[in-house]
């Protein structure tokens, strides 16, 4: 390998289009997911605006369903998943002392499929006369058959999911190969930072379930266009089969979104508590246990579907068991903070908020896992509250924390501490105003995915909408802070944080284009 690969990378637009550099690709992923967060968030703003008052004021019901659906899809597949892949790209090679990802060209491809997939996903929204009568997906992010089969532009959705799947699978293969094959000598598996561990397991989950999702949408495609009857009882199939296949993907999917967040928090807390992560080994085993359990609990999303009672019982037992390894994680974080010497820089604030608010979401998850009472909760705002606590104050909060944590390493500049604290407090207060009342709405009996409601739900919806708008505005502030940091700011040191440990903190800030041209020494 004599040619000096690292001295001649293209500049300008070509740098980004053709890059094989993990940092460039990480940056692309992160910006893509940020844009998707704004788009998905804008859809959420439409939802909250329509629901602010009872009565139909702004959009017609079909458009409302499209907003709900696209909001869920864009957030899950466009914002949360790619952002954690972006973090993996940036950080994993640095954390394990590798020069780059194992398969850099494929890495570029995993990213560059995404914008095309997103285009495919939103394209039908613009088909059909004017915007309001668009034919985009309006069948929920769970796209249950046979409702989804009624969509005239279903094929676009199916292929969008195929493309997203191809991207995720390639990205995960890359991450696994990197972690297993590119570690610097001496970096044994049990010495790896937690973030690397959680991603190793997440990547495994992704490779296991994305193909199943691809199978599910393929069946939808052939049912609609080629006469098969997977989900059609008249031909001997069953609409519920769709739900089984979907949730076999869908439940692990929610852990795909949360495990990297667990990893992030396990990096941040020790740094600012100035104390080693408590129970490293049990963290690893707990992560693995969660991943394993995630394959055998899927039907807790289908308690009302009319399963035999034995099935309902089994899925209840299995589901609530996930609380055990998750509890281990929560306790370990708590024990890490215990008797530490904590400081509260912005990343730490997000991490602490994560631990508390995610746990609240986990508690409601536990409540949902009990089949008998889930009959009352299912498909109400109680579920919406649950999953926003785990997704927004869980996954998203951890990701934002990660951005603050590593931003100095990426850009070489410190972010504006005052503004970022403002961002944190605004977000944390408003997000609770936004989602906490949704518990009440759900318990009172408000179904989800409805554009209008009885006035008895009016008060809490109003409160929730206000919280939503403030939370939305706070994220614009986030965008501003990030741009400001990229353009300038106090110079960051290599170590950045006093308590930071790990290889990524041994290299300069901003990290050089090729981090480790020679393998670093591991203690």
């Amino acid at each position, binding site marked *: 390998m004599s040619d000096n690969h690292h001295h001649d*990378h293209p500049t300008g637009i070509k740098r980004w289009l053709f890059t094989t550099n993990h940092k460039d690709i990480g940056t692309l992923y992160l910006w893509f997911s940020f844009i998707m967060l704004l788009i998905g968030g804008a859809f959420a703003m439409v939802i909250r605006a329509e629901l602010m008052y009872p009565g139909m004021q702004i959009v017609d019901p079909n458009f409302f369903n499209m907003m709900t659906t696209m909001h869920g899809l864009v957030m899950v597949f466009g914002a949360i998943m790619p952002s954690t892949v972006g973090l993996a790209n940036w950080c994993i090679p640095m954390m394990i002392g590798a020069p780059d990802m194992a398969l850099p*060209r494929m890495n*570029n491809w995993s990213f560059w499929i995404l914008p095309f997939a997103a285009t495919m996903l939103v394209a039908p929204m613009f088909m059909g006369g004017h915007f309001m009568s668009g034919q985009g997906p309006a069948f929920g992010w769970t796209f249950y058959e046979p409702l989804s089969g009624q969509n005239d532009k279903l094929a676009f959705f199916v292929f969008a999911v195929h493309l997203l799947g191809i991207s995720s699978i390639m990205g995960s293969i890359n991450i696994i190969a990197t972690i297993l094959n590119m570690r610097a000598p001496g970096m044994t598996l049990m010495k790896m930072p937690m973030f690397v561990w959680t991603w190793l397991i997440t990547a495994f989950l992704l490779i296991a379930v994305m193909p199943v999702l691809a199978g599910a949408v393929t069946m939808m495609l052939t049912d609609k266009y080629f006469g098969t009857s997977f989900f059609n*009882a008249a031909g001997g199939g069953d609409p519920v089969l769709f739900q089984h296949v979907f949730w076999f993907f869908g439940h692990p999917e929610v852990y795909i979104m949360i495990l990297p967040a667990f990893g992030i928090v396990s990096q941040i807390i020790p740094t600012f508590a100035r104390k080693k992560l408590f129970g490293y080994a049990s963290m690893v085993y707990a992560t693995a246990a969660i991943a394993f359990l995630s394959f055998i609990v899927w039907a807790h999303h289908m308690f009302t579907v009319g399963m035999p009672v034995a099935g309902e019982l089994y899925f209840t037992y299995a589901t609530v068991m996930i609380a055990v390894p998750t509890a281990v994680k929560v306790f370990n974080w708590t024990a890490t903070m215990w008797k530490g010497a904590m400081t509260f820089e912005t990343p730490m604030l997000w991490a602490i908020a994560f631990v508390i608010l995610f746990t609240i979401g986990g508690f409601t998850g536990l409540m949902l896992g009990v089949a008998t009472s889930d009959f009352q909760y299912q498909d109400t705002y109680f579920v919406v509250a649950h999953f926003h606590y785990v997704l927004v104050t869980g996954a998203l909060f951890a990701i934002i924390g990660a951005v603050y944590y590593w931003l100095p390493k990426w850009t070489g500049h410190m972010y504006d501490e005052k503004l970022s604290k403002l961002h944190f407090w605004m977000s944390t207060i408003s997000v609770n105003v936004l989602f906490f009342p949704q518990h009440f709405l759900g318990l009172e009996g408000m179904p989800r995915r409805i554009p209008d409601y009885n006035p008895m739900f009016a008060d809490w919806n109003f409160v929730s909408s206000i919280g939503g708008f403030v939370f939305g505005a706070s994220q614009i502030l986030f965008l501003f802070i990030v741009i400001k940091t990229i353009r300038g700011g106090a110079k960051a040191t290599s170590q950045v944080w006093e308590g930071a440990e790990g290889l990524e903190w041994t290299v300069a800030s901003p990290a050089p284009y090729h981090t480790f041209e020679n393998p670093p020494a591991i203690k």
Partner: protein
Amino acid sequence: MAEQKYYLPQPSHWPLVGSVGLFTTTFGFAMALPSKSGDPIGSLAMMYIGMAILAYMLFGWFSTVIRESESGKYNAQVDMSFRMGMMWFIFSEVMFFAAFFGALFYARQLSVPWLAGADPGTNELLWKGFEKSWPLLSTPEMAVKPEAELTFAKAKDVIGAWGVPFYNTLILLTSGVTVTFAHWALKKQNRSALIFWLLATVVLGFLFVTLQAGEYGEAYKHLNLKLSSGIYGTTFFMLTGFHGLHVTIGATMLLIMLFRAIKGHFTPEHHFAFEAAAWYWHFVDVVWLGLFIFVYWL
């Protein structure tokens, strides 16, 4: 010396070309599928252009990789990354098939018995007269609707296990052996044996596909067994169809390996591409065994 440790490829335009190809193909296809608006002819053209771009990308990308490989740029670590990549890719394929096998078992064990059964009245109230059987030749719809209004094709019979499917099993199992012989020959640096056994494998592979296509023709023409024959036809064609597609891909991969072997590529130490194709071939083989047992036989 330390420079030798890691290999990092140059920036490349192939991924982007690949994305454009994928997008053009699928977008064209999506537009071509029947819907209330759309332009099938123009869309199909778009799809074919996309496929051409994809072919161009595959050719270009693989040429680059082969060139780099033959010029000795790849060290053991790169080789290992490729191996892991291929293994996990095959794992993802396994999971893809698992979804369809899952659908098959679900239909056989749960949905058909429910539709025919005595549970809360599904049969009694909705599909009176429908009876459980497997292979399922008459659908629930046929029990309750007059012939003229059926949306599903009524199959006359199914394809038995012990005719062509059985021969195909033998063919694929044999091809698994021949590809192993080819591997041994490669390791022993016996190029003519390598070429011979590879050729044999490829021939067997395409023979399999041809026989399978003949069976499909038979099913459609004479048995009226179609994709639209209800859940039996659905699972039968989707499982065997995806498998057939994978055989075609695997055989094509082996064919390329054959050409490369003829051109003098591969050394006993360095032949990852060959091994990847061989792994893939074994995977296709194993899937077939599952199909033979659960789709044709039991």
